[in-house]
């Protein structure tokens, strides 16, 4: 049976922050980041990602900079030192959660 959209979405929502942070060890602009995540199997739409990047930047987890590269100016995002710390903590959290869930579900 297909999982109802809203339940699947809710489950994914929490993971998306971790996924996004994990890809920003090197700087990326929004659209490239979408393609990168999609290529690895995590679908995320633009309407979700761009506001999320803003929020993470407002929380000082990301830093950003406008640069002209190629044909147009793009906003490049990268992890801030605080963001790198949070990423490590979230990864640990994710691993612990994965173990727990495996135990619970098996």
């Amino acid at each position, binding site marked *: 049976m297909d999982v109802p959209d809203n339940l699947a979405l809710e489950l994914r929502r929490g993971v998306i922050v971790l996924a996004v942070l994990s890809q920003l060890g090197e700087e990326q602009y*929004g659209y490239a980041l979408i393609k990168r995540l999609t290529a690895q199997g995590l679908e995320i739409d633009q309407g979700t990602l*761009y*506001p999320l990047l803003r929020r993470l930047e407002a929380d000082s987890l990301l830093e950003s900079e406008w640069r002209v590269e190629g044909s*147009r100016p*793009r*906003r490049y995002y990268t992890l801030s030192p605080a963001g790198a710390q949070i990423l490590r903590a979230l990864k640990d959290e994710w691993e612990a959660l994965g173990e727990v869930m495996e135990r619970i579900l098996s």
Partner: protein
Amino acid sequence: MTKNSKATEMIDRYVEEVGQNLPRRLRGDVKAEMRSSLEDSALEDSALEDSVEDRSRAAGPAPDEGQVVEMLLKELGPPEKMAASYLPPKYLIGPRLYPTFALVMKIVLVVAGVGYLIALGVAFSQTAGTPGDAVDALLGMLPRFASFMFETLGIVGLVFAILERVLPASKEPPREKEESGHG
């Protein structure tokens, strides 16, 4: 994407509408980023369509850049909604105040209802007491009662809406409230 004015125009219009729904401090930056991202993905997607077109030219006209942008914007959803996702959720009366608001409203309604019945009783007792008088008293008081209710509920709503904006945001409101309730 200067070559296709229709696609550019659609993107401009969308971005402009998003901007209108954002506070000024965010507007310029968000608009610029959204424009550049949309152009990125429009270019990419129409390049994709081009290669499809090469392979199956017989299948009919491939979508042009304008159509690609149109689909892209449809995916993003209405610009007001897009703009809203850049902002914290907006409430007239938020979840933190709502329970208190609902309680006050209930009290007001009950008190007003009781008051109305009492006033009705008093008015009725002062008349001769025929059924016609009772109906007259009921109807005579109804408009005043209705406008009193609208005013009162309106004022309560207004006060709470102001509180919602004036009270500092706290991170975990429900628990705090519980604690202060028990303490």
